[in-house]
């Protein structure tokens, strides 16, 4: 119960952080989504999905739009990194900028997937399975977050092989989650 409450609190905090509505109605059955096999939720656990759906349809569509924009930005960052890793000479400043984009985006990721922002609400590539397998989805987000931190650390140095390996690890976390939880989406 304590953990569930923590999860609710963390989720609300996350929602508030992304401009979401601060709903006060606790819903324990949904809060369980955030109560995965993860270590006890702390204020630093940014991988917990919000427990509450957005307050209104407008709010939900706004979050979905924000989510789409962020993913698109990360796709672009990925392409920039890949190009620089293949280019001679490599422009490390481009890689560092893109690594920062990942590093900044990762903690926000879970907050952009509140329940009620799936394909029933509007155009999205997010599969309903996200909210059916909340714990697994959160585990994917944690892997992603760890990979963005590791890549940001690697990008502090200029070592192309290390960057390649670290970026490969990061991309695996993108692909791992997309393969399972993203449907094809036409722009």
């Amino acid at each position, binding site marked *: 119960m304590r953990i569930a409450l923590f999860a609710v609190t963390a989720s609300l905090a996350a929602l508030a952080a992304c401009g979401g509505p601060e709903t006060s109605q606790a819903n324990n059955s949904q809060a369980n989504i955030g109560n995965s096999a993860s270590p006890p939720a702390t204020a630093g656990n940014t991988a917990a999905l919000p427990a509450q759906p957005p307050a209104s349809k407008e709010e939900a569509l706004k979050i979905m739009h924000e989510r789409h924009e962020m993913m698109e930005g990360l*796709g*672009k*960052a*990925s*392409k*920039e*990194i*890949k*190009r620089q890793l*293949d*280019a001679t000479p490599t422009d490390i400043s481009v890689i560092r900028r893109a690594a920062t984009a990942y590093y900044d985006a990762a903690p926000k990721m879970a907050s952009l997937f509140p329940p009620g922002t799936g394909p029933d609400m509007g155009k999205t590539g997010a599969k309903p399975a996200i909210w059916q397998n909340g714990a697994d989805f959160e585990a994917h987000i944690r892997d992603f977050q760890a990979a963005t931190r590791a890549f940001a650390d690697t990008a502090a140095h200029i070592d192309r092989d290390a960057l390649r390996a670290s970026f490969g690890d990061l*991309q695996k976390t*993108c*692909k791992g989650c*997309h*393969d399972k939880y993203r449907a094809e989406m036409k*722009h």
Partner: protein
Amino acid sequence: MKQRVWDLPTRLFHWSIVLLVALAWWTGETEEYDFHLWVGYAALFALTFRILWGLFGSSTARFSAFVRGPVAVIRYLRDRFSWPSAGHSPLGALSVVALLALLIFQVVSGLFAADEDGLVNGPLASFVSIDLSDAITELHEEAFNILLALIALHVAAILFYRLVLRKKLLGPMITGRAALDPGVAPMRAAPVWRALACAAAALAFTLWIVAGAPPFRP
């Protein structure tokens, strides 16, 4: 007595393209992009070979033998689908040219394409900006539908010839031989060494592209 109509390289090209288009569709659809790229490289080799074979190959494979203007097409239709030599009729040639052009477009656009996550790049993607590469990728996806429509038309035409004109086109594309009407000129075959030379040139070109077209790669 059946006579030769399509040589082995032309038939091999035709059926490998059938296989490669199916594989390209499947690997694209399931996002198996590493495999998808290999399919594209194989198609690049096949198409490069076919272009060379259209210049140096057997008579029925040569562009000069079948690429004709609208006058020939109209005459062919007026003469009720009769054509005095083996190989593509002027109408069929339109389909061949359209299919080849679209296949070339798909392979070339694929070379500059990238998937939306930036996991896989075509070998020439870094020659263009990310935005242009994204736009090309979208065309690469859209144009596949046109290719499907052309393939449907191609198959429908074969059925039309079979059912309405009582002419079998499928068998000859497998065996290479057909019973020709009297007075129809058969195929003049090109020597084997020329096929090998075209294949070697196509392979060298393909490997160069796959390597990112050194030394021009940015």
